[in-house]
């Protein structure tokens, strides 16, 4: 491919330069220092990936502990002994207190430390400059600062965990969190401080990405020549920048409330505890779209590449990302139907129905993209298809929760738990794992074992559905959420759900082993194993330090399969096209 040397380009990219992963000369200590002081977005993406996968393990262990606790309801026998508690104390209530800390840990870790930073900080950091043809993000040192802040927030969270954790639920509702709640060693303050600090990391990352997309696209790349992954990251970053400061001030006020008893959330001092919920959900609803938009962005890429077909409705998907970002700010009250007045509930319910529309637009466009495509049955594609199925269920089950009449009955039940796990895990995590497989060869230069990947995907899919589909039934039958014990009638469904969670574990372990094995002994990956047309596939696998040998100039759209790559062409036979004649690409 022809690329252009800019006059003031620093000449770089000797062919024996090695990739960004090549160890610099020096001992182990100098390698560590090199990595933790890097401003290279690729290394930062890998650093984030390690931290996030570690926290995913922590949150996952907490989830398994929750499910094991729920295998049996707590029974107090005639002689006063308590059975059926995995975490038990002298009385049943002691056991419940420990359970409360564990589900809070699961929620807080998964939300603040895995899913919200998840895709943007890892895949976003790594891929965005590559996809735009840039050398790095707009503010590389700010990127490093973001990572430092992230790790600093993690240490606070781990400190809180060591202190025994918080039992308020990840939503920190007042007045429990502001006046009661376990407060040995200030656990509530520690955990809220952790979330506050992590918020800053999120803001700075989002800010960096917005400026990168505005300013660092390579020559020839207009807004509508960007991959849809970039559009998704752009919409995500807008939400991050606008919504995260509000959780910052909310948690700050909660910390003041806790330490100085300021009284704004405490009815004893004339405050309003529901106001905390308004403040909290003004951020936490848009943040669920921060979680899903990058996942959707990944799916656009996976579907296009693995069906070897242009995405249907590029502009529709791009604008619907922005529409989701905009509408997400209007609907936070639907988390508070039981605590708000009726007028507000009715208005928020009506607004919530609107947010489903752009999401549905995307799903229909993806399905249309698959039609008459050349579908490859590899792990990323299987995950993309799993996403379509699972996310649709999640989205559809949101509708009875948006409807006031049904929500009154299902509020705070397992129906809600199942719904958000379908969208958050069945949506974002599924897309994340799919994206990891898709870009693994690019990031690490090694191929994973395809059969192990497929087996893992099937295990994850089956395990996920067994775990969470049963929870819809539990919810409609009345099982409340966050309860450590329940009536005997629910036991069978709970046990099915617990079995499913272990199948899910098996699937995740399969992937973990597959990835580790590929890092250690996997075959070397070619630059473009899947035949993708976006710019990251034109870089080496793994890329060199400055991404491209020369600044790329875009010559075709991100999904121009029909123009560039005829169907049934093996990517191994793929030869780069000649530059198109001047002026022939109309914009």
């Amino acid at each position, binding site marked *: 491919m022809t690329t*252009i040397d*800019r*006059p003031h380009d620093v000449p770089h990219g000797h062919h024996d330069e090695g990739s960004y992963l090549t160890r610099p000369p020096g001992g182990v200590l100098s390698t560590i220092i090199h990595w933790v002081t890097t401003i290279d977005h690729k290394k930062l993406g890998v650093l984030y990936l390690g931290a996030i996968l570690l926290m995913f393990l922590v949150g996952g262990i907490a989830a398994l502990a929750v499910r094991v606790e729920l295998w049996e309801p707590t029974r107090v026998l005639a002689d006063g002994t308590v059975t059926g508690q995995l975490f038990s104390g002298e009385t049943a209530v002691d056991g419940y207190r420990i359970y409360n800390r564990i589900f809070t840990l699961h929620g807080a870790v998964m939300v603040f430390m895995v899913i919200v930073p998840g895709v943007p900080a890892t895949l976003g950091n790594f891929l965005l400059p590559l996809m735009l043809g840039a050398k790095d993000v707009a503010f590389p040192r700010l990127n490093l600062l973001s990572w430092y802040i992230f790790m600093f927030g993690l240490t606070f969270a781990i400190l809180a965990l060591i202190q025994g954790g918080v039992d308020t639920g990840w939503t920190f509702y007042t*007045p429990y969190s502001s*006046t*009661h709640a376990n407060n040995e060693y200030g656990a509530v303050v520690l955990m809220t401080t952790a979330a506050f600090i992590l918020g800053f990391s999120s803001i700075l990352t989002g800010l960096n990405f917005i400026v990168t997309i*505005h300013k660092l696209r390579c*020559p*020839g*790349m*207009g807004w509508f020549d960007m991959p849809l992954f970039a559009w998704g990251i752009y919409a995500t970053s*807008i939400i991050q920048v*606008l*919504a995260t400061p*509000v959780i910052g001030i909310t948690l700050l006020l909660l910390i003041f409330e806790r330490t100085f*008893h300021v*009284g704004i959330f*405490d*009815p*004893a*001092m*004339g*405050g*309003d505890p*529901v*106001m905390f919920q*308004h*403040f909290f959900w*003004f951020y936490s609803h848009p943040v669920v779209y921060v979680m899903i938009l990058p996942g959707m962005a990944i799916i656009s890429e996976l579907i296009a590449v693995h069906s070897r077909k242009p995405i249907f409705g590029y502009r529709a998907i791009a604008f619907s990302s922005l529409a989701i970002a905009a509408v997400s*700010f*209007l609907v*936070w*009250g639907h988390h508070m139907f039981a605590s*708000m*007045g*009726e*007028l*507000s509930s009715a*208005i*928020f319910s009506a607004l919530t129905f609107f947010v489903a529309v752009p999401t549905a637009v995307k799903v229909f466009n993806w399905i249309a993209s698959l039609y008459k495509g050349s579908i490859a049955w590899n792990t990323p594609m299987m995950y993309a298809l799993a996403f379509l199925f699972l996310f649709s269920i999640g989205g559809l089950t949101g509708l009875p929760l948006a409807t006031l009449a049904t929500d009154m009955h299902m509020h705070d039940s397992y129906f809600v738990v199942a719904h958000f796990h379908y969208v958050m895990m069945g949506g974002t995590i599924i897309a994340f794992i799919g994206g990891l497989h898709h870009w693994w060869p690019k990031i690490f230069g090694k191929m994973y074992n395809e059969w192990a990947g497929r087996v893992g995907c099937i295990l994850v899919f089956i395990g996920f559905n067994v775990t969470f589909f049963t929870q819809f039934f539990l919810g409609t039958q009345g099982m409340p959420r966050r309860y450590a014990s329940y009536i005997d009638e629910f036991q069978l469904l709970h046990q099915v759900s617990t079995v499913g969670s272990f199948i899910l574990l098996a699937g995740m372990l399969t992937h973990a082993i597959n990835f580790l094995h590929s890092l250690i002994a996997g075959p070397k990956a070619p630059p473009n194993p899947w035949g993708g047309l976006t710019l990251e596939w034109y870089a080496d696998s793994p890329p060199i330090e400055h991404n491209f040998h020369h600044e790329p*100039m875009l010559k075709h759209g991100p999904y121009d399969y029909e123009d560039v790559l005829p169907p049934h062409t093996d990517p191994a036979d793929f030869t780069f096209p000649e530059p198109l004649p*001047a*002026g022939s*690409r109309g*914009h």
Partner: protein
Amino acid sequence: MHAHTAPSSFDPVDPHNFSELGEHHGHHITPWQTLLGVLLALLFFTGLTVFTAQAETYLISDMGWHIPNWVNIAIAMSIATVKALLVIAIFMALKYENPLYTVVFLFCIFAFALFLGLTGMDLDNRGRVYAWKQESINFGGTGVNVQHPGGTIIDYDGKKIEMKLGGFSGSLAQNLKDAYIKAAGITEDEYWRRWAEANHIHEHDEHLLSSANRSLRRTGLSGALDLSEPTIEHMPPEYAPESADDHGGGH
């Protein structure tokens, strides 16, 4: 850096003319007369907003006009908005910058407006369907003892006094009154005399202030708290919760 070709021709180095776009009008340098003019305008508007607030008070208390509460907010906020727009447009040079920054700022204001608007919609309309939801939030709601650290304060006569509360429930103000009566060793009547004095006059900083604040009459209060003619008989003996149809009475 590159040949300046006519915009319609295709430059393979830069097909979208990014560098042309980048060379906008150079950095705009605001003339110092403009900056000074804006400063003077801002100072004028500051004076105006203070004047209108005090004029309104005068009209209500001394001329007996009935001016609804929202007028005060509307005037003050309008003037503040004008001042803010001057600062944003000229001092922060948003008027001369890439319109993208204006879009960023407008989105931010939009999110701000949504936040305040919809939260306010909820908090103001609690009683729309069920009237009992509109009742004011009463004290001692959780029934949990709040720990008060106590402390030494300067009394109304300039001397120090130690206030001790410890754990309390119910109204903070009520508890403070009881603690003060105990700490100062006075009667309830004497407390109310001192209270009337304290809420009219700032004795501790009288030497720094003029009588400006002293002459302001309190308006917009509910009947039980009318202090236009303070006498001991009119002092509310205890802070009773307000009834459902009188939620604040301020509107």
